[in-house]
Each structure stands twice: as structure tokens, then as C-alpha cells.
């Protein structure tokens, strides 16, 4: 049985600094993260909240911050009555420069067996990271005609 975790690697034609900004800037996240904006001062120990539609959907805490190489925060989905009962999980972003691109590896782990958050984020991360790559490379995020209810990741 495989570990309950989600790992995703993508390569983006950008610089580590621009990618770090894209992952942490409140206004910029709103432009590609399907209506979510990320609010934090990004210092270790500080809270980070993901807002969507005027509500807080995920409560996070910054665990590690080494710009522009490594970012780690805890993740607690609070928009769903089952997910809110789960213990927080953990998201790690590793940014590695390779030639004129950045290799971004996202590891989301720390889920209990039967977690409802895990399938939710497993569907959400490829959407968000694909949209992130599109906006950094073409200037436009992925365009979807309706507000995605493909979870809040």
C-alpha cells in the first residue's frame, strides 16, 4: 500500500524569484489560483490563510521559508465538515533552477488513512500548478468558463 501523500513535479520557464513571488503574493495568487488568494507575512511561525469567495477555506502555518528555494507550510482545510476534523497536513515546495527553467516539486503529505483532504488536493494541485505554469509562461492563467469547484487547492 503506498503512503498517503501527493507528489507533483513540473518544469516552468521562469526564475526561482518569480516563481517564489507567484506562490506567495496575495494579488498574484488570486490571478491564477481559481479565485483563491493567499494571505500571510510568510515568516516562520506566522499563519497563512487561503481565502475564496470571502471565506477562509484553508488555515495554514508557515513552517519553513528559505526564499527562493524552499517553502513549507501546514494545511488544514476548514470549508468541509469532515476535512476540518482531520489533523493538518504539510506542503513542501522545492524550487531548483535548471538552465532557464525552474523544477518545482510539491509534496503534500501527513494524511491519515481515509483522509478526505487527500483526494481533494490530489485533484486540485495539478489544476493550480498547470494554471501557475500557464500564467508565468504565457501571461494568462488557465481559463475555465465556470468557477471551479475542483476543490480549494
Amino acid at each position, binding site marked *: 500500500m503506498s503512503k498517503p501523500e501527493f507528489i507533483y513535479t*513540473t518544469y516552468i520557464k521562469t526564475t526561482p524569484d518569480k516563481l517564489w513571488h507567484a506562490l506567495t503574493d496575495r494579488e498574484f495568487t488570486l490571478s491564477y489560483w481559481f479565485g483563491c488568494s493567499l494571505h500571510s507575512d510568510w515568516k516562520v511561525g506566522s499563519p497563512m490563510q487561503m481565502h475564496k469567495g470571502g471565506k477562509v477555506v484553508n488555515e495554514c502555518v508557515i513552517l519553513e521559508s528559505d526564499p527562493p528555494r524552499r517553502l513549507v507550510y501546514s494545511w488544514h482545510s476548514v470549508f468541509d465538515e469532515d476535512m476540518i476534523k482531520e489533523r493538518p497536513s504539510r506542503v513542501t515546495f522545492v524550487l531548483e533552477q535548471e538552465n*532557464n527553467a525552474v523544477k518545482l516539486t510539491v509534496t503534500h503529505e501527513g494524511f491519515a488513512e481515509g483522509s478526505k483532504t487527500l483526494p481533494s488536493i490530489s485533484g486540485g494541485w*495539478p489544476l493550480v500548478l498547470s494554471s501557475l505554469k500557464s500564467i508565468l*509562461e*504565457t501571461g494568462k492563467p488557465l481559463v475555465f468558463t465556470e468557477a471551479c469547484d475542483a476543490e480549494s487547492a
Partner: protein
Amino acid sequence: MSKPEFVYTIYIQTTPEKVWEALKNPEMTKEFWGRRRNASDWAEGASWRHENYDDPDKISKVTFAIDEFMDAVRLTVTHTDLTEEGLRGISAGWPAVLSSLKSLLESGSAMPMTTKLWKRAG
């Protein structure tokens, strides 16, 4: 216990037809697939050999699912019947190939790391 498998989903601002074309056309695959091409007539059941550089008889199975998703395309690659060692190799390869495919279809050029021949195991 089932053999290891690898699943990767990527969303591309394009049409299903363009994704299909990119996978089949050698002039395009050489850009995003490390200067390789896929030799097949692509009929269902036809053979499709994207050979293991070091061991051409190691056979695994790749499924491409190309779906419309809102105004974009969701491409899901499922790679099955792998050995543990094979899984390690392709887990590194697919994200690079598919990231490069997305760049090619959205911005007109593939990523530099995939335009040259890769010498890689698995």
C-alpha cells in the same frame, strides 16, 4: 500486490486534437520528448514502442487520456506494469516531457532540456 504505477495529470490551454497531433507527429515529439519519436499507426491495439534505451524488451504500458475540461484539455498519463526501478526512471521523465509538451502547445516552444537526446535508463 499490484505492480507499481505512475499517474500524472496536466491541464493545457489547447484542444484535444492539438494534443493528439503533438503525440503523433515526429516533428513535434522530437521537441518535447528528448529527440525521440513514437512509431505506431495509433490504431487501437497497435504496438507502440517507446523503447527502454538500455533494455528494449522491458515492456510496460502507457495510457493517454485526453479530455476536454472547460475550455482547456486535461491530459492524464497512466504508466503501468513497471518494475520499481522503471518507476523511478519514468517518474522523473514524464513530468519533464509533459511540462515541455504544455510549453510547446501554449507558447510555441518546448523546454530546452527536452529538445536534445536524453541518455537515461528506464
